[in-house]
């Protein structure tokens, strides 16, 4: 990778190894997230996709390797530095993670009230602008319990962009949503990325949706990067594993059967 490419990277992960509870979740990964693009990390459930987001956000610390965001080493800056860095990051959790005791308006206003001393009138304008961007300006007075799952995720998205971050991380944004909501969220991710000049990282296993909106995809399995490239390049990947995953084939490098002794021996071996 030459120098100009390197300057265009917002996140650079090198040699990441991370284990929790004695289980190796990430086993030597190098990942580059280019600035201004939508980059997706795909793989089966339980392969450490969400863990990667937590490592980038500095919530967890890898046992080996380094994570740099905007040229700053996430795990070496100390608490103050990390909090400064996090103001440039937005994160959309799978559940939305809205504060249940606050209204939609107050949820979006929360980061503004915490980090700025803006007058109430300006906070109101900013909140309404963010809610307008996700199409929920009319829902400002509702409580989180009155929102559908898709609406909650859109409010969480408005809150995540409240401080105008440089990058935004989406954790499984399409899971459990109806097709219309999936379409809305896909459009929002792409539109916000392009109009606000964000860098987006999506963690997901929804092949169609991710392929449609990503500029670059990393395929991961068993804690390693299997392949990466543009959606079109991956569609033509020579890797059997990538082909099985993209086409949802039940058998292949990832076997249909959990490892077991020989079927016939298992059925008749005990009785004989």
């Amino acid at each position, binding site marked *: 990778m030459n120098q100009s490419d390197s300057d265009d990277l917002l996140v650079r992960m090198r040699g990441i190894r991370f284990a929790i509870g004695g289980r190796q979740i990430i086993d030597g990964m190098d990942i580059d997230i280019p600035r201004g693009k939508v980059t997706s990390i795909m793989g089966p459930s339980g392969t450490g996709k969400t863990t990667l987001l937590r490592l980038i*956000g500095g*919530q967890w610390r890898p046992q080996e390797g380094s994570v740099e965001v905007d040229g700053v080493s996430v795990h070496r800056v100390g608490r103050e530095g990390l*909090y*400064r860095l*996090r*103001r440039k*990051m*937005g*994160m959309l*959790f*799978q*559940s939305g*993670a*809205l*504060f*249940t005791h606050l209204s939609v308006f107050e949820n979006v206003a*929360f*980061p503004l009230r*915490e*980090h700025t001393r803006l007058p109430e009138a300006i906070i109101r304008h900013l909140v309404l602008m963010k809610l307008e961007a996700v199409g929920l300006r009319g829902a400002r007075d509702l409580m989180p319990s009155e929102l559908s799952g898709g609406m909650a995720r859109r409010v*969480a998205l408005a809150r995540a962009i409240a*401080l105008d971050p440089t990058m935004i991380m989406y954790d499984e944004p399409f899971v459990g949503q109806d097709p219309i909501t999936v379409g809305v969220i896909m459009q929002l991710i792409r539109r916000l990325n392009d109009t606000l000049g964000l860098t987006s990282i999506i963690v997901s296993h929804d092949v169609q949706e991710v392929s449609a909106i990503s500029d670059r995809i990393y395929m991961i399995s068993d804690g390693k990067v299997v392949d990466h490239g543009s959606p079109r390049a991956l569609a033509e990947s020579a890797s059997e594993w990538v082909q099985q995953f993209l086409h949802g084939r039940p058998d292949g490098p990832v076997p249909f059967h959990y490892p077991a002794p020989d079927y016939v021996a298992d059925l008749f071996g005990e009785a004989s």
Partner: protein
Amino acid sequence: MIGGWLQSLGHSGLCFFVRLGRSALFMGRVAAGLPSLLPLPRLLVRELHSVGVLSMAIIVLSGLSVGMVLGLQMYNTLVDFGTEESLGPVVALSLVRELGPVLTALLFAGRAGSALTAEIGLMKATDQLSVMEMMAVDPLKRVVAPRFLAGFLSLPLLAAIFSAVGILGSYFVGVGLLGVDDGAFWSQMQSKVDLQEDVINGVIKSVVFGWVCSWIAVFEGYDAVPTTEGVSRATTRTVVHSAFAVLGLDFVLTALMFGD
């Protein structure tokens, strides 16, 4: 067999001390976050309402009931010796020194402590604490510190209310129903109950219990396994550990204060 038993005992012991150490570090970080509440009094007021004011009903009812039963029982014993005029100081000393702080702490752990643990645990389970961290807002300062301080401040006040209502309850039963002399009830109480020896020591107990019960409640919530079962277990642990801690500390404090 014995080796395995010893091993599991050792493992449990180590886990206990690791957790104790973690909770002490946690307490240190919460204490360090307390000054950050100064510019945000609204946070503390809201928690004082939820932890303190909403516990008033159970405290007043329990105090009244305990005071009335205490008045009745003490009267039946004292009247045999012809000293029923001592009902006032006996009831007041029992409440101010022991029953007020201890029963209030036990009720507080069940009513407010469990609610604090469940609230913080559920915020953790639904990623609300993580999202706060990702917004560069420290949940220890924003969520835990106000709840801890509210519990710490509320318990001594609730214990005072418990004792006062209890004394009134015993007055209604002793003077109102059983015919103890009104003047003797109050004047003996005034002369026998010492501010330093009895009242202040009772307040010190309730301050210690307030600190311990609030610490246990917020730590269990923050340390809960972020699942439905984990939060449920943490809530149970809050009540059980608070009860053990209050009863154990009560003996130690009583021995220190009144042992000589």
